[in-house]
């Protein structure tokens, strides 16, 4: 269009307006779309619950102290995940391995407690036929599936990290991206815990 087009320097740098690696950008896009999935499920839960005058008090169905403990476990695993990233950034290989293992352990404990909780609830008659059961199992199940995926993801990264592949400020990107996913799962649990168990 412009008559000055010829003066544009040949070496125009195509820089990302966000100044992050494409890996990080794609993880963020995935997380936003995943958040929309959870928003849809939470909206379904909200509509069913607000429209149902017979909705039981969640505290009569669920074990709040046990789930609070589970929330605590997940928050701690977020802390160990940032420790893992810090270790990777500072070139601390053993530290990275140790903190990734701790994060995986946190996820595994969370899943174990959830499996125990589900077993208890199912044997006590909570089922998909009741609105409170259907929304509970769908929301916590979809979230639990994310935790399971996260533990597998962390396992893969932990094995890939042997040999110092992710050590140093310029190479720790994959650990940071794993952390983004893991913190997102923690963030979703914060909302699920509040809306499903406490409200």
């Amino acid at each position, binding site marked *: 269009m412009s008559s000055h087009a010829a003066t544009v320097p040949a070496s125009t740098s195509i820089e990302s*307006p*966000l*100044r*992050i*690696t494409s890996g990080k950008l794609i993880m*963020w896009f995935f*997380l*936003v779309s995943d*958040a*929309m999935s959870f*928003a*849809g499920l*939470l*909206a379904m839960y*909200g*509509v*069913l619950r*607000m*429209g*149902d005058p*017979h909705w039981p008090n969640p*505290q009569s169905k669920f074990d*709040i*102290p046990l789930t*609070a403990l589970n*929330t*605590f476990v997940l*928050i*701690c695993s*977020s*802390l160990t*995940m*940032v*420790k893992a990233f*810090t270790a990777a950034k500072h070139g601390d290989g053993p530290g990275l391995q140790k903190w990734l293992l701790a994060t995986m352990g946190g996820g595994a404990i969370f899943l174990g407690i959830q499996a125990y909780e589900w077993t208890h609830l199912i044997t006590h008659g909570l089922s998909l036929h009741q*609105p409170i059961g259907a929304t509970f199992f769908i929301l916590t199940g979809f979230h639990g599936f994310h935790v399971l995926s996260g533990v597998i993801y962390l396992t893969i990264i932990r094995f890939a990290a042997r040999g110092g592949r992710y050590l140093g*400020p*310029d*190479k*720790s*990107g994959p650990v*940071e991206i794993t*952390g*983004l996913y893991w*913190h*997102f799962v*923690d*963030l979703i649990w*914060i*909302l699920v*815990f*509040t*809306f499903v*168990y*406490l*409200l």
Partner: protein
Amino acid sequence: MSDDHKEPNYMAVWWGLLVLTIAEVAVGYLHFLPKAGMVISLVSMALAKAALVAIYFMHLKFEKRTLATVVIVPLILSAILFVILVPDATSPDRIQPPAPAAEPAGGHGEGGGGEHK
């Protein structure tokens, strides 16, 4: 990657999350607030915790503002869509869920019991 921001105090964020979780459980479990106060305080504490995780653990504070915008706008739109559903969900004309069926006395084992009321 080589962002030169100084490391946030992750321990302080963890303490914040812990304290808010304890406060949430106290509010939700002990019922010392009226219903509306309970809902408002629980939702705001949950959003505060979610914001802490996103801002510090997910480093949104240290990214360009554009990324935060990209992330937040769809969530605001989701929240608006949810609010739009509220009048429908609570209106008297909504499709009523079936009332919990009263158990017929001694009626177990009778298949197709919907025929005779």
